[in-house]
């Protein structure tokens, strides 16, 4: 079962964040669900063998790209055609 610390860590890893206020309830619910998942431990068998629909590919042909205004339409911040993002270290 996951501790509050582990649940907090997962929230960090998934970059969804978690408020300290929610942490207790979240952990409790999280663990109930994980416990429910334990039924899978008893499952045995093989995974699927690919029988149909493989090698789905297209020819190497070009198609028109989006006009840049369309690319940038939903973008919050841009500069000289580039999309602006927070700095990475």
């Amino acid at each position, binding site marked *: 079962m996951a501790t509050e610390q582990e649940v907090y860590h997962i929230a960090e890893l998934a970059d969804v964040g978690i408020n300290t206020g929610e942490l207790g309830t979240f952990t409790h619910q999280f663990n109930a669900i994980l416990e429910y998942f334990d039924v899978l431990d008893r499952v045995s068998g093989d995974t699927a063998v690919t029988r149909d629909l*493989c090698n789905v590919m*297209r020819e*190497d042909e070009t*198609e028109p790209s989006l006009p840049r205004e369309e690319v*940038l339409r939903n973008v919050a911040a841009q500069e000289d*055609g580039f*999309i*602006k993002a927070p700095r990475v270290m």
Partner: protein
Amino acid sequence: MAEGQVIVGLEVHCQLDTKSKLFCGCSTDYRADGPNTHVCPVCLGLPGTMPVLNKRAIEYAMRVAKALNCTVLQESEFSRKNYFYPDLDKAYQITQYDKPLAEGGYLEIEGDEGGEKRIRITRVHVEEDPGRLVHMGNAERGRYSLVDYNRAGIPLIEIVSEPDMRSPREARKFLNKLRATLEYLSVFDSEKEGSLRVDANISILGSERVEVKNITSYKGVEKALTFEITRQKSQLRRGQKVERETRHFLEARGVTQSSRSKEQEHDYRYFPEPDLRPLHVQSWVEGIVLPELPDARRERFIAQYGCSLNHARTLTGDLRLANFYEQVVRPDPAGLATLADTWISDTLIGELNYRDMSIDAVDPATFTGLIGLIREGVITDTSGIEVLRVMLDQHLNNQPCEKPLAIVDRLNLRKVSVTIPLGLGYEIDAKSGVEPSLTSQSNPILTAITEALTANPGAVEDFRKGKKGAFNFLVGQVMKKTRGCADPAEVNRLLAEELKKEA
């Protein structure tokens, strides 16, 4: 392995030269265009979009796998590599994880100890390139990043080697051989900026392994490895442990630097890409006809043109160079093979490198003409180099390009030599035929010899005393006086005679 042995493995990423991207129809020809102009909903990762695999990328990758003697897997599939970074617009990269396209091959290189050495290939797989990040700003105004997704979705082939290399030199040779092979297969264009990226793993036997990322040039690989080995060895010498870590190569400074620790904690949470179907392409291997590869071409050059092993290696080590050579000798292979071999390997390559020029700058027919002049005796080797330099500089400086013979005549470089027995005072003009002239004094070589001997009594004295270099020095002085146009063999012969006379 010896103690202190260097162990190197490489992961090489090359952009495959397809017309469209790996999972969408955007054109891959983005380098000349502005940011975010080769982007569509799919490669931008807009919600709801789905990838569709480019068949040619798989065909190209399979050519590589076959050329590297790998085994193509019966079933291979794509996986998601999940991590967050602004240049990765889906927050996952579609790559191949536990079921790559091919495994278990090798590439032969010239080992440090001489002779052929096999570098084993662990795996070959296909993946998409992320976008490109530019770091902006400064501490005062605030730092931020600018992203261009033109590169996002370009097909990459990743070739992973076993840690079989034992020096930066071997690593460079591996990389060069790999690059040449990929070019021979017509799947890769090494001239395209950023088309190749290398991650290197280095350790000293008995110590931890260090990964160096972000090496983007061939020279950079050797530099990075050399620096890293020195760094690791000096750590060990000081009694310190080498940390297992990831470092970045800073090309401009030639050093590696430790990456932020967050990198090491990456848990990529791989799982099979549910929007793509598996590949069953093992049966395609048989039908792949490989072109002549570097090793085979090297052997053919030795057999067909009489090239030395070293020259053959050099010439076939680059596709363009090999093609150039064969085009140059084509009008008369028997007559031109050896001359072209020497001239290209020993002279042209050096002159091109010095000017940072590509072999593409030289027209094969023109070059054939140039070495033809040398073969016919119109000019000496030395003059030939001078003409070549003029030709290359004209190209480099965007000046009108003259034909070799025009340069010869403009600079008055026609060969001067005596081709009939001494004493008769004949002077031969190699182009127009025999033109008898009257006295030996009008023989320019003899004139130059007389002047050189007069001007350098000390050297003559040294020669009498038996000093070895004196004769060659005097030959050099004579050559200088004739501005390289004299036939060196003639100069040697006549000078020796004159010195004998004076004795």
